[in-house]
């Protein structure tokens, strides 16, 4: 194998790296083989295959890629939580009011579903036919709305909870886990 072939193969093996790292490594090894001169064949033999040389370069680059991340102390978390108080209290109350509103709507429809027909039957037995039928009708309407709404409400509750806490964690510096929806 010529030195040019060797370098080309090495370049191929380093394809995944960023341009700067890759060209730095190639400059080094091109020079290295040039220095070896007449002994280039022996030098390539000693270096091993371009693949194995590339593996060593990539292994080191892999280690270096992991950026140094200082661990956040509890105190920093507490301080951030206090400093971000206006933000997270707003978020939290928004989230809570959303949940309460949805729960209230569902509860109202559920109550109407049960109470309105009873009222209607009572009315019918006391010969108030118009009012009785109207009550039974609104009871059925409520049941329909409750059935229609409970699933989207549940979904909204779950999603809003998930995102609220994700944003909350971000605010106080706790790394958020990947969100899967």
């Amino acid at each position, binding site marked *: 194998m010529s030195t040019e072939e060797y370098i080309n193969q090495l370049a191929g093996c380093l394809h995944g790296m960023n341009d700067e790292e890759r060209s730095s490594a190639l400059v080094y090894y091109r020079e290295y083989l040039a220095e070896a001169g007449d002994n280039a064949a022996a*030098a390539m033999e000693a270096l091993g295959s371009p693949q194995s*040389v590339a593996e060593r370069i990539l292994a080191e680059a892999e280690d270096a890629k992991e950026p140094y991340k200082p661990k956040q102390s509890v105190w920093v978390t507490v301080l951030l939580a206090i400093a971000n108080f206006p933000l997270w209290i707003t978020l939290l109350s928004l989230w809570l009011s959303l949940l309460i509103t949805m729960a209230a709507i569902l509860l109202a429809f559920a109550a109407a579903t049960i109470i309105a027909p009873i009222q209607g039957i009572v009315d019918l037995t006391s010969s108030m036919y118009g009012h009785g039928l109207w009550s039974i009708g609104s009871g059925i309407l409520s049941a329909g709305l409750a059935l229609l709404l409970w699933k989207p409400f549940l979904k909204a509750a779950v999603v809003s909870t998930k995102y609220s806490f994700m944003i909350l964690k971000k605010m106080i510096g706790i790394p958020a886990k990947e969100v899967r929806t």
Partner: protein
Amino acid sequence: MFPIGSALLDAMVLSITSKEETYGYKLTQEMQSAANVSESTLYPVLRRLQKNGALETFDRPYMGRNRRYYRITALGTAMLRQYRIDWEQHKAQVDAILKEDTT
């Protein structure tokens, strides 16, 4: 015979470059004469030290091409000083167990 870990490699490379500016091929030859270090070990070490700011590089023309020289920085010198202290300590600890009793 005894494997050389990355800390020791760093220390040795820093020590050689502290004596004179050198280039990859020459450095590899020097390291090989002293220790059983494979030829492809040194580039990642040099690159790491360069990125850490312990070494800096510069190109010098030689026979119609460039040689990339490595030069130790102030940070590298400080690291080397610490490595030498640590090494002495390590040596003493090993010796305490390994050395033949001469008394």
